[in-house]
């Protein structure tokens, strides 16, 4: 147990942040990611990738969201899951197709986790802009950040971002663990009391629902703290707001995701006659 970034995650984040500095909002970063050799980060070495897993992929997706990039990383990873040929192409730097059939199964779980990470990045990037801006704008002779009404809102948003970042990292870790298969020794250990009942599917759904709401809420507050300037075409913050709106619902609306998460919680409660009756009443149509 070490729920802190490892050395490679720290290095990856620092390198990306450096490389993405100066990229304008909604900038195309396909070639830049290619020069960094990151298109194949999650793709198996046999197909020319690095085989590093989603726990590193979420670092990439978050940093892309932080600069509000229009990336091909998420769609590339998804395209690569359709087969070895597509994977090799993506790893070699080919642009993924603009449209693709909606994913299902494990591909949907992983797409949701990457999406959650991108939304965490959008929220974190917008929050950075809001902190800077509210330190510069003055009212009643003080920076607006010095007022509790502003400072507390920014503090609460920071907690929200950290919450969703951890939910996303945990979902990625569960998905990687399941992909690797459990070692035999794990079966002999006492079952813990894992968050999300240890299910990557549930962990992905709740991370995405929470990230979607955090991104729309945090970007709106961040824009608000910019004042009218934030609405103008010159302001970076309005791009975060727009992107949060379109990206929040890509793999399910938050309201539907929360219901789906709730249904899975019921399904994983201790299996009794009572539980079965509750589940039946909750509706079988939920997914």
């Amino acid at each position, binding site marked *: *147990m*070490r*729920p*802190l*970034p*490892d050395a490679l*995650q720290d290095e990856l984040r620092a390198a990306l942040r450096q490389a993405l500095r100066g990229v304008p909002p909604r900038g195309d970063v396909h070639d830049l990611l290619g020069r960094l050799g990151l298109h194949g980060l999650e793709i198996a070495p046999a197909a020319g990738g690095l085989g590093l897993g989603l*726990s590193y992929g979420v670092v990439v997706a978050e940093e892309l969201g932080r600069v509000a990039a229009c990336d091909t990383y998420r769609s590339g990873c998804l395209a690569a899951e359709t087969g070895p040929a597509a994977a090799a192409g993506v790893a070699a730097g080919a642009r993924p197709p603009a449209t693709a059939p909606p994913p299902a199964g494990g591909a949907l779980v992983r797409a949701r986790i990457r999406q959650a990470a991108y939304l965490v990045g959008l929220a974190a990037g917008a929050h*950075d*802009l809001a*902190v*800077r801006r509210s*330190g510069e704008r003055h009212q009643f002779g003080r920076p607006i*950040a*010095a007022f*509790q009404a502003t*400072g*507390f809102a*920014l*503090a609460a948003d*920071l*907690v929200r971002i*950290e*919450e969703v970042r*951890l*939910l996303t*990292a*945990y979902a990625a*870790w*569960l998905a990687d*663990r399941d992909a690797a298969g459990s070692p035999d020794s794990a079966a002999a*250990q*006492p079952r*813990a*009391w894992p*968050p*999300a009942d240890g299910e990557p599917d549930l*962990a992905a*759904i*709740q*991370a995405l*629902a*929470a990230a979607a709401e955090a991104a729309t809420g945090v970007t709106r507050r961040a824009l608000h703290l910019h004042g009218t300037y934030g609405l103008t075409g010159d302001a970076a913050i309005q791009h975060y707001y727009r992107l949060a709106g379109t990206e929040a619902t890509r793999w399910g609306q938050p309201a539907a*995701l*929360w*219901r*789906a*998460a*709730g*249904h899975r*919680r*019921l399904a994983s*409660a*201790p299996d009794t006659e009572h539980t079965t*009756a*509750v*589940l*039946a009443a*909750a*509706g079988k149509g939920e997914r």
Partner: protein
Amino acid sequence: MDFGFDSHQSRLRARVRAVLATPGVRRAIDDLAAGAGEPDERPLYRAIGAAGVLAPDWPAEFGGLDGGPMSVAVVAEELSRAGVPDTLHINTVQIVGSVLRAIGTADQQRRWLPRFAGGERFACVLYTEPEAGSDLAALTTRAEPVPGGYRVSGTKIYSLKAALCDVALAAVRTGDPASRYDGITLVLIDLHAPGVRATRIPSLADEHFHRVDLDAVFVPESDVLGAPGAGWAALTTALAMERTGLDYALKAARWYDTARGGLTPGDAADSLADLGRHGASADAARLLAWAALARLEEDRFDPVFAAMAKLHTSESAAAVAEWGAALRGAATAPTTGPARCLESAWREAPGLTISAGVSEVMLELIAGSLSGSAR
């Protein structure tokens, strides 16, 4: 990031489960649940303490298992799941024990730590005063120097479990009363000593508070913790280190499981989104507490992250309790089953966002770290 418990931690978990499953411990837990009013958990803690698992992060010479802060999470999770009340354990081992380990002399540590770890002696804290609540720098309890030690006089309030405890960690003033931060000293007060009087203050929650009046209570020099007058820094460090949020996160998880288990077919369809939301926030609470503990384990304690963990975990637990009460209606005072647990949780919830750092102070700490620069 690694969210998996290693084999050492899993063995500890198995060991704690085995201890909690022994007939003597099981019976003590059942006795507590069956009793009316505020229970006396000391027999239960004696039974668990005899097995040596109450202070897993302490050195073996003090009755511990030489584990790190993460081992505390393993033990606390298992105690919580088994329905063991946490206040005596937290106060004795995690709060007073930790302060003793940080600034106690070798003699003080030898005298108290093994008995705390063994569940033989219990400790509480005496910080708050009638005129010094969240603002501890305003405390006025005086310690007058006398040959061989001090005579302590004053009134402390809102102490939990004081009537069951043997010793208290108290913050008292040894220096100039005009100074707010200088001259505060931490001392151990023998609660059985002449001049100590504890009276009950009824609480909304199941656990009542105590007012502890100290009338010229003698405290020998050997019971002064750290340098006289330098207690403020030790106190603020101790308060911040308590803020991993672990105990609040475990309450959120336990109450969530209770509410989920108590749902009826009639509730189910209306409760799906709430089940999802509160489940996620209880999960996030535990992840934040683990992350705060991991920082402690690597000596990377970060007071701002700790404030975030305290704020999130306590607010999440309170929100889960509110949801649980709304499912059944809390006003009926049920006597059994999940409904009793949820009704009790609902009365406990408001205290969570007040104790160990009120939510607004946590927000102030976090906001203060933001000002001026982007993080």
